[in-house]
């Protein structure tokens, strides 16, 4: 591991709480990191030491904000079918989604960060799903849980949306019919990894806009859903 691309980190003494190094795990785009003004001697610890640094922590702003965000992703439980049962199991004691900071299921879109679409999305429900997604505040993410939410699943019919990504941009797809709670937790961890890597210099919804544009270019799918 290289700390900010300059010096190897000596963290023998301070391995318990090495905050900048912890953030650095997620700063993939090293070219954007400003170089240190003074070269660091190789024996200097690179880590947070309250005796030396006091109350000041040096880190990157986006790493910090993303750290806050990714550890309290409040879900909007969009439970539409049997996948919602597994979603409930993921929130209950045996699997306990609160270990990952997502136990606060909010049935109010303005207080939630990630919409977990758990189940079959029918055309009758489609605009309601879209409306709730639109009501969620940025930044927001979507997990498509199970075969139906991802692709329409076994419902190849006139009544079922063939994948919720035809309505809202999806960040993580979970396979399974229904997926086990572990699979949902894995999806949540993958989403956390994604959230931690989101650069602030890019508009939060830029990738989303790209996705919407790509979707509009495909003629078999709804170009723009008027809500």
């Amino acid at each position, binding site marked *: 591991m290289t700390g900010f691309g300059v010096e190897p980190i000596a963290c023998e003494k301070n391995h318990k709480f090495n905050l900048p190094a912890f953030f650095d795990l997620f700063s993939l785009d090293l070219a954007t990191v400003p170089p240190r003004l003074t070269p660091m001697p190789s024996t200097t610890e690179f880590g947070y030491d309250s005796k030396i640094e006091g109350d000041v922590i040096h880190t990157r702003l986006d790493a910090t904000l993303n750290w806050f965000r990714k550890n309290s992703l409040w879900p909007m439980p969009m439970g539409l079918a049997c996948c919602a049962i597994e979603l409930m199991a993921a929130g209950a004691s045996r699997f306990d989604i609160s270990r990952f900071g997502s136990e606060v299921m909010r049935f109010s879109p303005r207080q939630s960060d990630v919409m977990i679409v758990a189940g079959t999305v029918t*055309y009758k429900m489609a605009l309601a799903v879209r409306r709730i997604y639109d009501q969620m505040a940025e930044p927001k993410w979507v997990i498509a849980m199970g075969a139906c939410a991802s692709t329409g699943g*076994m419902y*190849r*019919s*006139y009544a079922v949306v063939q994948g919720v990504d035809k309505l809202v941009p999806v960040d993580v797809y979970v396979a399974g019919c229904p997926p086990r709670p572990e699979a949902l937790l894995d999806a949540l961890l993958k989403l956390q990894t994604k959230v931690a890597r989101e650069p602030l210099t890019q508009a939060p919804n830029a990738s989303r806009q790209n996705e919407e544009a790509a979707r509009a270019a495909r003629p*078999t*799918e709804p170009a723009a859903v*008027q809500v």
Partner: protein
Amino acid sequence: MIGVKPIDCHGVVIDMTPLDLAKKLRENFGEVLSEPVEFRGEITLKLSDAERIVDVCAATKKELGFDYLVDITSIDNYGEDPRFTIVYHLYGYGHRCHLRLKTDVGEEKSELPTISGVWRTADWHEREIYDMMGVRFRGHPDLRRILMWDGYPYFPLRKDFPLSGKPSDAPGTGFTRTAPLEGGPFVTVPGGKDTIEREPRVRNPEE
């Protein structure tokens, strides 16, 4: 349960059979009701005039004790005339007999009287038939679509409606798109010896 006579809640043996009840019904409505047809112990009566359905249903409920309307279903006899068949499934908790009534409705008319005044539960059954098959029920208190939204232009359970659906747009209300069938529909064959034979696959009968 063949050969075992049903007993009511007081332990009294019930001697009524569906055939007896059907014959009793024909005493009053012999001119419009067919001979009872028995198939696997189930009795079906065909009503030749759909306009009489309310009278017949009221008689089955009040005089014959069919106090439970189990279901109303509809059949699309596509390519034949009359096109639609409406099927009423009746049951009586007192005598524990089932009875099935059928009546035909032509495509030009596509209308028959509602029986929601006889059994209130017919309200939603008739709404569903209207929604899926496009047959209207005259005098229905609230004949709206029940599964699709108002303004959806098709009747999805008709035989000439493709399984993959048709695209539609009702701005602000709903939309539909065609589902990719990929050579389907996917058909499940029961009784296969392994999962590969049983699971849903593309099976075209002409191939």
